[in-house]
């Protein structure tokens, strides 16, 4: 299928056009952006990122591990220290807290990899539509469409103030 790339200066134009194209039934879209942008975050997918589920699971796992590990280990070989109960929850909160952060952080990283699909592609190779200008200051909107829609999409891209439109795959 032909793939068209429009080069833009502003994220807002890209986001609006992407939404418009999706309404017109073009589903195979991709956006390249040199910077994080909240407009683009919602352009292809309105739902909040699923990374948050990973953080939640990691954090809950951490706090449970923290308390379970310390309490079980204290009871496994009971030693009286400072006249305190064998398993004293108050000081163990420090351990549980640190493990919440540790596992929460590591699971968030895992979330980035899973949700963001990283590592991506082959070593040293980039997608055919990608260009180093998209890690400079320009934005790219990639549309895969049927042959007969090429001229329509080209028109839409240009009308939405694309600086350039390139056909990367015929």
């Amino acid at each position, binding site marked *: 299928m032909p793939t*068209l790339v429009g080069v833009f*200066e502003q*994220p807002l134009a890209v986001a609006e056009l992407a939404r418009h194209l999706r309404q017109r039934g073009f589903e195979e879209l991709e*956006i390249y*952006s*040199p*910077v*994080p*942008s909240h407009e*683009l*975050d919602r352009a292809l*997918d309105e739902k909040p*990122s699923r*990374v*948050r589920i990973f953080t939640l699971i990691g*954090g809950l796992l951490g706090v449970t591990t923290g308390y379970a*590990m*310390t309490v079980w*280990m*204290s009871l496994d*070989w009971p030693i009286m*220290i400072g006249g*305190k109960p064998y398993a004293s929850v108050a*000081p163990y909160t*420090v*351990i549980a807290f*640190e*493990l919440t*952060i*540790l596992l929460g*952080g*590591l699971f*968030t*990283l895992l*979330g*980035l990899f899973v*949700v*963001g*699909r*990283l590592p*991506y592609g*082959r*070593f*040293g190779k*980039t997608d055919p539509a*990608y*260009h*180093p200008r*998209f*890690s*400079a*200051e320009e934005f790219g909107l990639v549309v895969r469409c049927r*042959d*007969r829609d*090429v*001229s329509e999409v*080209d028109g839409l891209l240009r009308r939405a103030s694309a600086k*350039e439109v*390139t*056909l990367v795959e015929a």
Partner: protein
Amino acid sequence: MTPPPALPVAALMQPDVEMPDSAANRALLSPLGRPSLRYWALLGVAVATVVYGLSVWMYQIYAGMGVAGYAHPVFWGVYIVTFVFWVGIAHAGTLISAILYLFRSKWRNAINRSAEAMTVFAVATAGLFPLIHLGRVYRAYWLLPYPNERGLWPNFKSPLLWDVFAISTYATVSIVFLFVGLIPDIAIARDRARGWRKLLYPALALGWHGTARQWKAHNRTVLHLSGLATPLVLSVHSVVSWDFAMSIVPGWHATIFAPYFVAGAIFSGMALVLTVVIPIRRIYGLEAYITDYHFDNMAKFILLTSTIVGYAYVTEYFIAWYSAVETERTSFFLRAFGPYWVSTWIMITCNAIFPQLLWFKKLRTHVPSLFAIAFLVNIGMWFERYVIIVGSLSTEYDPSVWVTYTPTWVELSILAWSFAWFSMFFLIFLKLFPVVAIAEMKEIVIHEKEHAPRRGDVWNHAHTFGEIH
């Protein structure tokens, strides 16, 4: 066969045009260029000192802890002082990258990368010291809860074990934070890499294309890591302070310790960020990105935390007097007028008095003065920990066992090693990765382009960027 496209395909295909690179990329990737002779000289000195320090450490492992200046009852000396010092340094990085991120303080963008890198290297330096202090370093793993033939588990009621968990969590989360922030910038470097760097950056960029999906996951990740790191940064130095405060040593057993240590940590960290960033800005000509506005803000942080630290000093003395506990009163009297009076007065002047000069805007924006004050703060904060740790231990309850502790050449060599170790990592980092977060700086450039006519934005463009557009 599908019908032919309405436009001839050939007309749409364009030859590869000369890449229009952004000014930000060019300026901020420039430090990655060929290292100068001065860079190699600096790195050489750092590596040589590290090698020297490692050999001194090996000598200490071989000869035993007697070669350190420990004198009963002072069994915590320069090593623990230096440990606390470096953990404290690490805190500015997380403050800048996480807390200021949550507060949407855009000025952090210019310094967050160097501060995050400093965090990682400072924790890596701090982490060495409990091992050095341990003596029998080959038994360090006993600290971890692992199933063993003795059937024993570590004592989770001990603040020292909390420290193990706090510091290792801190190290891990800081590395994750630094790496996640670096991914888009490594991709920028990948797209422009030459030579051997063509092997390094693709491997580390993980195939980052800056797609909408990747950025969306990335934004969330940074937000959540910031949310996790914010309580972490407050907890880590609190836990370190409890190593002292949970004991009953006069001068340590105080409830003020956690906030006092956290403020001191941010204070010293900010000062070291300034000490490192001021030369980098000058050497690589990054004045357009790291402006006086940023220095002014950091100076205000130093001023605030200096005031908190100074207030804590006054409180400590007041409570020692007001408590009417003989040992507390003696301990604090001896700090100021006993054998460690020099250290104490260095600490008070460098931490609580000189930084107060930053009330003057002239000094906050005068780079040499700022550098001098930041440098003095670094010295003062090392002495603060020296006074707290050594001063309190050497004059505990029973005057008959009071001693005067003096660091030996072994301890001072290892102290020098710690600075060289930190600098070595930082110098290597400087040549491998962008020291200013490029994507975040460009976010502001592009945002400004979009809203160019609007005035009175949350922050002043001119302040932050100078003439770069």
